[in-house]
């Protein structure tokens, strides 16, 4: 049994992150990044939002919403750097930056969401 690459694992994370990002990020970004700041729609008040986010399921949802898309970015951006800038020879640096960044973001998300408020 020869050594098979562990790329499948990274590709799975990329795919899962891609699905989460595709399904959920557009509406979140539209509301919080565009509609609410522009005043097109009224967002939840501070108290309501805090209550919503404190719920354990909401915190789990937000964790997944942050963690998986980060790994989607890591994998995709890594290959964009390889092919777009042709710097594949720097692959150790690139991999550390991308996957390391994703892991860091995931840890940050977990730490922030561990307890609310």
């Amino acid at each position, binding site marked *: 049994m020869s050594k098979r690459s562990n790329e499948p694992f990274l590709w799975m994370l990329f795919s899962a*992150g*891609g*699905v989460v*990002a*595709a*399904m*959920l*990020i*557009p*509406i*979140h*970004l*539209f*509301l*919080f*990044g*565009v509609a*609410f*700041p*522009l005043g097109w*729609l*009224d*967002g*939840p*008040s*501070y108290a*309501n*939002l*805090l209550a*919503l*986010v404190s719920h354990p399921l909401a915190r789990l949802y*937000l964790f997944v*919403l*942050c963690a998986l*898309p*980060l790994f*989607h*970015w890591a994998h*995709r*951006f890594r*290959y*964009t750097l390889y092919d*777009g*800038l*042709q710097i594949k020879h720097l692959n150790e640096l690139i991999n550390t930056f991308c996957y390391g960044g994703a892991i860091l*973001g995931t840890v*940050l*998300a977990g730490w*922030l*969401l561990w307890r*609310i*408020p």
Partner: protein
Amino acid sequence: MPAPTEYLPKTFRPRVSTYWWLGRWPYLKFILRELSSVSVAWFVVMTLLQIRALKGGPTSYAKFQEWLRHPVLMVINVIAFFFVVFHAVTWFNLAPKAMAVRVREKRVPGLLIAAPNYVVWLAVSAGVAWLLLRG
């Protein structure tokens, strides 16, 4: 390639230009699709900042909302929004290619696999919007 001999001539290897992706429109579309991942990462950063602001209390959250209204942030978020929608559309349209789903020995047409994705997308977006807009 071994060294050139009389019968094995010296081949010419053109170097791939750094701007290969500007050469054809499909390549540019591909690179834009890949760069949409940066908008995805930006959204996560923004959300983490938002959660931190939320935990900091009403004043800290109000300051965060004020920050989001800054013209530069607005431009970033509008552009990022178009990119994440571009990601979603290209993702749903390409998903059928990876899954050669066969029902009763016949390959299911791509449209029948892409369409349910769009339905779920709509339903999930409506659900999130309802949760956040009901006050």
